[in-house]
């Protein structure tokens, strides 16, 4: 059973990574920006979740609020931080993004304290056995919501007019706009969706650890960058596979390599080896 348990734990971790990394890859696909501050939005999502849950004792309401507010915050970041410098070489928005991420971490510290916040009453802790797998409700919800949101994203991308407009804008914004696509709207929407997925991820992290803290985004920020590179920059499917793969490898690694390396080092050793073997990423773009 240990084997299966580890697999489930890996899937769980992979779901969280996947939800963060998808937003990042969406932004990269559209604007060729490495949006490091995305990890700050993940943290923001976690904070909003804890605060709203503690105020209203409704976890669901907290997640929805978090998705909407963080989605809006993503749009504001695009408007203020990226739109004015889109014509600059890629390192300019990258530096702006890193700066913004550090500023966000400091703001969390200033507003909510250095030691972070916890739920007054931790929701979704009852055990729930499905198909003979025993997990906490919160863990099931994490996996289910990742699968659900990814399915919605796939539907949006492949079955709707909006998805078509998005794909056209990714390939050739000029020509897409010539055919009536409002590319500014597409970009805003892109930031809204990507950021609210990061918020979901932050909410799940909060409830799984019963803690949000100012720097909870730092490790995910490194990992998400590595994941989207592994996934073939801008390739959404590749990013999701890379995220789940990393979750699983970490999960087995923590048991079998525990004497040598801790969880995060295992992840980075894997990423370094993978990128040495396939510097172009595990998956090609498109």
């Amino acid at each position: 059973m240990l084997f299966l348990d580890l697999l489930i734990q890996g899937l769980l971790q992979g779901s969280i990574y996947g939800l963060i990394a998808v937003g990042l890859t969406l932004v990269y696909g559209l604007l060729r920006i490495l949006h490091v501050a995305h990890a700050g939005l993940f943290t923001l999502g976690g904070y909003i979740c804890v605060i709203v849950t503690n105020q209203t004792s409704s976890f669901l309401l907290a997640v929805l609020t978090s998705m909407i507010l963080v989605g809006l915050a993503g749009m504001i970041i695009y408007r203020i931080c990226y739109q004015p410098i889109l014509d600059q070489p890629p390192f300019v928005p990258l530096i702006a993004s890193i700066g913004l991420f550090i500023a966000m971490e400091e703001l969390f510290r200033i507003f909510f304290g250095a030691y972070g916040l916890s739920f007054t009453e931790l929701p979704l802790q009852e055990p729930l056995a499905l198909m003979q797998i025993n997990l906490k409700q919160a863990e099931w919800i994490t996996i289910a919501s990742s699968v659900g949101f990814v399915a919605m994203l796939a539907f949006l991308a492949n079955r709707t007019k909006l998805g078509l407009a998005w794909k056209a804008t990714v390939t050739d914004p000029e020509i897409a706009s010539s055919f009536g696509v409002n590319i500014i709207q597409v970009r805003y929407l892109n930031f809204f969706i990507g950021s609210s997925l990061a918020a979901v991820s932050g909410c799940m992290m909060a409830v799984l650890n019963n803690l949000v803290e100012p720097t909870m985004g730092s490790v995910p920020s490194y990992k998400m960058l590595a994941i989207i590179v592994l996934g073939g920059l801008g390739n959404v499917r590749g990013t999701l596979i890379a995220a789940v793969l990393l979750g699983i490898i970490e999960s087995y690694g923590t048991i079998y390599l525990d004497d040598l390396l801790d969880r995060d080092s295992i992840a980075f050793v894997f990423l370094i080896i993978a990128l040495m073997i396939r510097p172009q990423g595990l998956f090609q773009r498109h």
Partner: protein
Amino acid sequence: MLVLENLSCGYGPFRAVQSLNLKLEEGSVNALIGANGAGKSSTLMSIAGHVKIQEGKVFYKNNELNQIAVHNRIRLGIALVPEGRRLFPDLSVEENLKIGAYHKSKQRYSTNIERVFELFPRLKDRIEQLAGSLSGGEQQMLAIGRALMAEPSLLLIDELSLGLMPKIIDQCYEVIQELKKQGMTLLIVEQNTKKALEVSEQVLILESGRKVWEGKAEDAKNNPEIFEAYLGLSS
């Protein structure tokens, strides 16, 4: 009716086109000719909104285009077949055509796609195929088809026959004749001056960003020395 008034456009401070005046009558076919780098594409792209207008004005149906967002110009009826086709290579033929009709209703889409398939039956057989895997000729047909999906009243075509074999070129020009019959206004950039003169009424020659000759296609046909003088080639 399209009017360019003293138009200068270009890149940064560089002027690719200088003080161009031009008037296209409704339903006319116009050829824009000139050597490489003369500013033909820049002219078309400034009408479409992708090259900056530095001075002067462009009007279409009495709207000043500078006041109209790029993505709204298609609603005025201006569609573009850009240089190098610029299809969406990772999207299927059908999806490319859908983008063409992006601002149209579902019903208009169905009507328009039937029309495009009548003009280019080959596209119908390849509807599921990725645009990037089409042959050069098919890609040009798709680029024209995509623009026609928008039901334009003004069609801007850059390098219609470039890189196509004669049979396909003839086919494309038959479609142009058909569009002309339907009353569409066309502005065609061409290297193939002979073909361009066959369909057009008005001809315009650019050299280094300036208009150097303008007149009826017949006059141009009867005076091939015009082309020798400006393009160093005979029609």
